[in-house]
């Protein structure tokens, strides 16, 4: 497994190399600048704006923060939703706007040693893939966070749509309704039915199962009870 992981890594690195070559023209801003900058190098400022569509900024800015690379650099949002994170040396950083209510996509920001900025989509797997984002950043909330799972609620439709219930209810309907639809008094019809019954029961000598059952349980109310209880126990089983 270790070997496999390594292979995967190797593959990944090869892939990155490929991408590297393909976007070579853009590479002067690339990750090579990394964290190897001198401590006395210039410091830069990342600017942008966060937008929650349809919500007044006053209502959410007080709970929001801008985090760059975890909590390495912290910025705050102005009352109009714009922000600036100061004192960042050149390198490549992931910037995130965090609020407990709204979800913002993170953005990767590359800063060259000369202070040129570039924003792109975060891709942790192909780290050097460049899909440009506007700079100064425009980060739009993609909706509220969904923290909660929906409870399984119990409704009659759920119960009725249960395949087991369907399997029981449909034959029941047929048994009850069919005799009413089909006129049994019609002698022709009766004949036809008898024929079809004989088709179903190829051996007329063999006792009918239903008859056998009625004989077995005759006198006791067992059959009806068993039937109803098996019907009723289903919702219980479902709930667990």
């Amino acid at each position, binding site marked *: 497994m270790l070997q496999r992981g390594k292979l995967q890594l190797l593959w990944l690195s090869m892939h990155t190399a490929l991408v590297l070559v393909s976007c070579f023209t853009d590479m002067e801003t690339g990750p090579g600048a990394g964290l190897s900058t001198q401590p006395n190098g210039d410091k830069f400022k990342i600017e942008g704006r966060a937008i929650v569509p349809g919500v007044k900024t006053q209502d959410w800015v007080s709970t929001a923060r801008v985090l760059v690379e975890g909590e390495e650099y912290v910025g705050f949002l102005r009352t109009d939703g714009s922000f600036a994170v100061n004192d960042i040396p050149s390198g490549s950083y992931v910037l995130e706007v965090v609020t407990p209510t709204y979800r913002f996509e993170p953005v990767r920001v590359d800063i060259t040693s000369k202070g040129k900025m570039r924003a792109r989509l975060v891709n942790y797997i192909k780290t050097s893939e460049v899909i440009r984002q506007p700079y100064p950043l425009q980060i739009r909330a993609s909706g509220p966070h969904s923290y909660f799972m929906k409870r399984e609620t119990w409704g009659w439709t759920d119960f009725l749509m249960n395949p087991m219930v369907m399997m029981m209810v449909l034959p029941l309907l047929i048994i009850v309704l069919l005799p009413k639809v089909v006129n049994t008094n019609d002698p022709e019809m009766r004949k036809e039915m008898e024929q079809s019954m004989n088709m179903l029961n190829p051996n007329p000598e063999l006792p009918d199962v239903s008859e056998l059952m009625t004989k077995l349980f005759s006198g006791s109310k067992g059959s009806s*009870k068993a039937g109803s209880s098996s019907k009723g126990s289903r919702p219980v089983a479902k709930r667990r």
Partner: protein
Amino acid sequence: MAKLILLLLELCIIFCVVHAVFEDQVGKFDWRQQYVGKVRFSHFDTQMQSSKKVLVATESNVFAALNSRTGELFWRHVDKTGPEGNIDALLHHAQDAILVVGNGRVLRSWDVNIGGLNWEVLLDSGSFRSASLVGQQGTVKHVAVLKKAFISVHYLSNGHQKWIENLPDSETVDYQTVYSGGNGHVLVLGVVPHSHITIVVYSMEDGEIIKQVSVEAPWLSNIPASCVVVGQGILMCADSTTMSLNTLDLHQQTQMTQIPLQSLGLEADPDFHPSLMSHQPNAAQKPLSEFFLQLGPERYLLLQLNNGQIVTLRDFNPALLASFATTGEKTVAAVMSPKNKTVSKSQISLLFLDACSINLFSADTGRRLLDTTLIFTVDPNGGKPEKLHVQAFLKKDDSVGYRVMVQTEDQTLTFIQQPGRVMWTREEALSDVVTMEMVDLPLTGTQAELEGEFGKKADGLFSMVLKRLSSQLIMLQAWIAHLWKLFYDARKPRSQVKNDISIDNLSRDEFNLQKMMVMVTSSGKLFGIDSKTGAILWKHYLDNIPSNAAFKLMVQRTTAHFPHPPQCTFLLTEILYISFFFFFGGRSQVTPPALPQPILQSLMLPLMDQDYAKVLLLVDDQYKVSAFPSTKNVLQQLQETASSIFFFLVDSSQGRLSGYRLRTDLSTEQVWEVVIPTEVQKIVFVKGKRPNEHVHSQGRVMGDRSVLYKYLNPNLLAVVTESTDMHQERSFIGILLIDGVTGRIIHEAVQRKARGPVHVVHSENWVVYEYWSTKSRRKEFSVIELYEGMELYNSTVFSSLDRPHAPQVLQQSYIFPSSISTMEATLTEKGITSRHILIGLPSGGILSLPKMFLDPRRPEIITEQSREENLIPYAPELIIRTEWFINYNQSVSRVRGIYTAPSGLESTCLVVAYGLDIYQTRVYPSKQFDVLKDDYDYMLISSVLFALFFATMISKRLAEVKLLNRAWR
């Protein structure tokens, strides 16, 4: 495409596996407490009479607005930790709050009402000295910031710089304060120590130097500490060497006027440095001509400067604290004085409550205002009052009313209203919890009785039956009492039913879900907190704790040994050592042993003395071992078991790990030593397994029904090292798995092009660690699992000394799309429940990641067998889903640690996350399999049962009728 399908499949599995919070469970099992830290600056929002905001800026780099009625937070902004987020000054004007942050690096203006940033400007670098609002013609429109070499003035409205000027002779003169009297001038005061004061007057309009004066003052070295500006721009300095006050008119004079204290008929405490306090109600106006002079630790004087003459308005002796407050046109002085009160409580005990009374005095006359006394009761388990923040307001009849916020040494904020009603208290010490333990609550009397029945030896059938009946009776009685209480409470209005939680009525619940959290804070205050509600049950303040002390908390005796009180031991490394009964919060009667040498290591042994207290072994720097408690019984037990007691020491400065063995005479012997060269790498930390961890299954069943046995070595240590070379190409982190008894290196892994900070969880047969990959600039998780193989060497007992085969090691790595703050694994009673890893994220969420995702056996290609085993196919990136956040939107700032404790239910694990906030909840890693869910539909099941019952009745009747009919036919 195949990947997409895989992902979908994975999502499908996740959906089946993972538990999330349901919306109706909000606040049911969890609570959060938000803190701000030790208050450094505070301002009452006085722009409106009805305003309820208290602005606080704290030493934890937090700026917040508290609700002065309830003590809750309106909003809070948490800046970066460390000096870059340090708040140097807080100025407040109208609805703007101006903060100077990071040694004068950033100037921020906050809108107090919204809690949003108005503007933020970056200032030129240079160490910060002082900041002040500058007023002109009755309005305040500017803020001046003084740095070591220059002064800059900014507009309050947008932060733009109006002008910036270099200070003259800034190499020799140490400029310390900036002052503005509202007359269009900005005065900068600097000092050349032991020589003279330099006063530079700038014009507000263009920053031109109007005047520059030097005044002889050889005794002065620190202006803010000893000088204030009083009245019409008169500098007043206290000189402790000659015991005199020195005045200087900043606009006219060039010579200080010395006024000896004796000439005022005053005498200062001999070794006390007198200090002054003045008040400038509005930056556009001159300061008051009245000021406080502190002459001793408990003596204040209210003085007035009148035409160069100092008049004593009032002498406060004794007085602990004094403060000015302004409302409208009136300025008052609040003085806190001690008041020793003896309260006798029903003849049983005499309680000495140290109370303080606070009184208001008119600032211009020194006259005491009527009906303004306010009593502040000092908590005997707290610290002394340290700061007094006064909020004055005008009542309807134009008299002055006030509320005070008292800050005590133990970082507690108490907000008091007249005549002494405590509106709220905030224990800000809890913003910095260092370590904690969760302890079971004791059994109630009835529960203990029932337990006792099973414990005793049987004495005859008849008596046992009797006992059974009697205990059954007791249970019935308790149940009826409970029902009665429920009924009684139901009749009362909801607001009156308050579950008063105190130590006396706390008892273990059915499933041991309620526990006591014993928390140790860095300020030296200990807390006992009820885990169910978050109520503080007891607190204990240990003063004179050094700020950098390391703490260790150990439960020496649990509640299981009834007549003996439970006992926690609190170890303060290298200095002293206190032992206490946690349940009452008091110190125990047991005298702690005197420790002449610093302690290197402490171990809790499973041995117990005759009082059921576990034995604590302390190893000092001479490698001598002492036991506590050290009774004869214990020493004898120690001698018997000494051969099986091993311990290890870590010296990270020399990169040395060494293992020792205990001899029967309690001396030690070195068994092994591992040296990690410090030039190349340094030991970051060493992590063993948790002693209270249970592992239920010895192995894993594979797809082909064979068993892969886990390597469950309880003595295994995970040692994490980081390279000293921080270059991104050469940096690496190393992980060593060492057997703590034999010193055998089980496994060694090196992660190249990786950097710390490393977070590690070590449990069962696996180690999960997280690091920063410098090559791909992302966080990565790696998991190591150890297996014995297809057969177990010795299945009955594990011995480090007898394990000839090296374990099989499996490892896999993953990408994690966020940085993390801390990490911990869930823990349950018997270890049957699957494990989750709880990850504290900087965004404030606590992610519960199933260990299933961190499994080195996750296959790349799905086979029949891997499907049988329920393995999730490998995907390089782990996903963060907000449904996995156990704390939903209750984000927890700066999580420093997560504590997990098992509960009485196997499915349930109690979790406490602490940092700036404290969050407590329960997690169910494998869902609640052993208890009915809290949304269990009792109505449905009972209605179904009833329906069935009636259906049988009816059908029985129908069947009878039918039979009868058939019989008639």
